[in-house]
């Protein structure tokens, strides 16, 4: 088991390196850099001015060198101007020679600065991530139990009226992406057109003070879309288990129906949905971005949109590292959980 986790961690690291390099590559393509120079310098810069602005800041170096700098395995750029001022990636302008750091990358704990927010990337990410964590936590709290209950009830007696109504419900939710359900919910429950006004159409205040009124709609919007898929998987898994021969064995042993469901079927039926729940988390990240934009909730997803639409390279890299790590960790948990739930794999 230990070896297995170690291998998975190695694979994770490799994946994360590959992915961040791709992000790095795409954000550092020349048109992007040109835009960066013009937004940071001024919009009427000449070609040459852009060149030298970028050159001074090490942007024109080899892609791998730049990536190495960001990682902190290659020395940061140092430029000595004609007037003698020395600027560098890792130190303030004109810092004393012996107090200059040579490396400043992720490995050194330096995630860089956001050009849009004029703030340290690490602190930006951590506050926004906390806000999104709150949202995600509530979503999982609503989504998982609801999905499992719906799935188990539907799969318990295949083809019954209960099954059909619940299945229709879960199919409908999978067909409703967040930007559709969000719009519908806001229109019905928060707009003046229908006049219900039960909830608020904006969740901006929920960052500091989450209430039922301002937080329910974003949570239910994400939860519903994710729920349908898990519920359908649970149902499929449950119907399959209910027709398995060992369920018949149990029935013919004289076990009562509730006990068959609870003692014999449930554990076997939950193996497949568990992995689905875990793999669903990357999808939730998508939903988070949409919902945070729709409800103006300034969390991690909102940050991603800001970073990406302004080509804020350092911030974007950090955002992608975080999201990739989240995805990979959930994959790891899903693998381990699968092994744990399924004695067939655990012991052999």
């Amino acid at each position, binding site marked *: 088991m230990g070896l297995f986790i170690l291998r998975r961690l190695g694979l994770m690291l490799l994946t994360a390196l590959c992915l961040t390099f791709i992000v790095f590559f795409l954000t550092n393509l020349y048109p992007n850099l040109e835009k960066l120079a013009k937004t940071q310098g001024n919009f009427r810069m000449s070609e040459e001015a852009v060149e030298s602005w970028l050159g001074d800041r090490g942007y024109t170096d080899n892609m791998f060198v730049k990536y190495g700098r960001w990682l902190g395995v290659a020395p940061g750029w140092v430029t000595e101007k004609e007037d003698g001022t020395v600027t560098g990636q890792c130190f303030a302008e004109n810092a004393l020679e012996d107090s200059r750091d040579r490396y400043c990358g992720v490995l050194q704990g330096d995630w860089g600065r956001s050009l849009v927010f004029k703030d340290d990337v690490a602190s930006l990410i951590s506050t926004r991530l906390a806000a999104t964590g709150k949202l995600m936590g509530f979503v999982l709290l609503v989504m998982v139990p609801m999905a499992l209950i719906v799935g188990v009830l539907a799969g318990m007696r295949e083809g019954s009226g209960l099954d059909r109504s619940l299945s229709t419900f879960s199919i409908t939710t999978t067909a409703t992406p967040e930007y559709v359900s969000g719009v519908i919910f*806001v229109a019905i429950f928060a707009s003046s057109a229908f006049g219900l006004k039960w909830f608020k*159409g904006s969740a901006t205040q929920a960052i500091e003070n989450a209430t039922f009124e301002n937080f329910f709609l974003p949570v239910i919007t994400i939860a519903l879309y994710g729920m349908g898929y898990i519920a359908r998987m649970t149902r499929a898994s449950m119907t399959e288990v209910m027709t398995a021969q060992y369920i018949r064995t149990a029935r013919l042993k004289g076990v009562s129906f509730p006990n068959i469901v609870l003692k014999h079927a449930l554990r076997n039926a939950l193996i497949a949905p568990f992995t689905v729940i875990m793999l669903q988390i990357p999808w939730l990240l998508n939903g988070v971005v949409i919902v945070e934009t729709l409800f103006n909730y300034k969390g991690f997803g909102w940050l991603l949109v800001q970073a990406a639409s302004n080509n804020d390279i350092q911030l974007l890299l950090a955002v992608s590292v975080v999201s990739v790590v989240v995805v990979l960790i959930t994959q790891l948990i899903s693998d381990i959980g699968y092994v744990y739930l399924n004695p067939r794999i655990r012991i052999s």
Partner: protein
Amino acid sequence: MEPLTWTGPLGAYLDTITLALAAAFFVAVLAMIALNAAGATGRVVTNPDGTLSTSGSPYDLLASAVKWIGVALIGLVLAYFVVGVFGGPDAGGIVGALSQRMTPVWIALLLTFAISIGFKRKLGLYGKLFDSTVGMIGFALVMFWVFTGVFGALDMIITHDPLSQVSGMKNKVPGTPLSGAEEGDYQWYLLGGDNLARDVFSRVVKGAWVVVQIAPLATLFAFMVGITLGLPAGFYAGKLDTVLSFIANLILAFPVILLFYLLVTPEIVATGLPNYMAAVLFIFPLIFVGVLLNARYYTQPSIRTPLLLVVLGFLGWIYLSLISASGTKINILPASLDLFDIPGGILVVFVSVVFVNAPTVFRIVRGLALDIKTRDYVAAAQTRGEGPWYIMLWEILPNARGPLIVDFCLRIGYTTILLGTLGFFGLGLPPESPDWGTTINDGRRLLSIYPHAALVPALALLTLVLGLNLLADGLREESLKD
């Protein structure tokens, strides 16, 4: 000109009844679910003709109540539409007017269903679809939007130009009469005006065409890529599988939105990256068809060679036309031979949607190939010395078609959602594009005051994706019955 009400004069008679029936239906269904969850089921009796039915208990009474109320409800709703088709806005209000505009769609739908049901025994899996209620509902929803898209593109349905702005119509509610209407203009904005005073109804209809064009085609390309790579990965396993699976997982680990933001920006389009990606992704259908035919006919070179020349020549021409466009980095085909150009915005959307979908298809195909390659008929093919590609494409792939067709339907729905997401973030497609995602994005800013501009495309997208999901469900059910 008076503003239209939703159901017009007809509604005065019918609305109360419809609402009452709908409420009754809802209550009855809830009661049935409650009874069912409590463990009550119908008592089954056998009829003399050898069929089974239920009768007697309160549960059964409720079940038949649900059925009959449902039938009545559907009948009433149909009445609104039928009256609308013949009476138009004067008799049926907004619903009637919409129904009248949609007349070509109704006719096409009726014809499709009449013909399909008539010949369903001869149509294989497609015919069997008409044995399943769920599948038929799904198919009807999907075809509704397909026909709407097609007829919309032919300008048969829309009431106004989707791009033109009419002063005084900004954010007007559904049914508002056109201000300053001239002779020959349609008199109303049936579903209201958006924040730029454009007709919401016409935009939704035009938007359907964008989806109906891109989503199935992009899904098809994703399948070509996924199948061409997934089959060898599953069949050979080993190193090839490890490498390909790693790449697939790499793409899957990317949050989709981040990927879109990275790929679909004007700066990236300027680098020509989407064109290069298109050049790579679009070559897969060529490889696929080439290998498919070669594996089948290599024993008979006299048939194989001309066949391959013709087919690949034709596909190659289309391929070159697709990837080369004047003014981009790839412009290899002279303009006289270039059949068509795809606007950069559409191309990048298309490419990124294919790129995001292909790894999932790859994984499905790989899993199926791993399963099917252990069958004896694969071993039989091996023992008579068949090449690996023949086995993959002619022995394994045809027997994986069931799950793949089902997934294809689901994936079109998912692609539709992705397209909407792109539009929602204002990526790729031009800002005035009538596609549903962009329209929702435009409309959401004033959502709490004027919800209709965002709500209508949202419901459109919902019904289309729901239809695709139901269709997939029906297909799955019917293909399992074999």
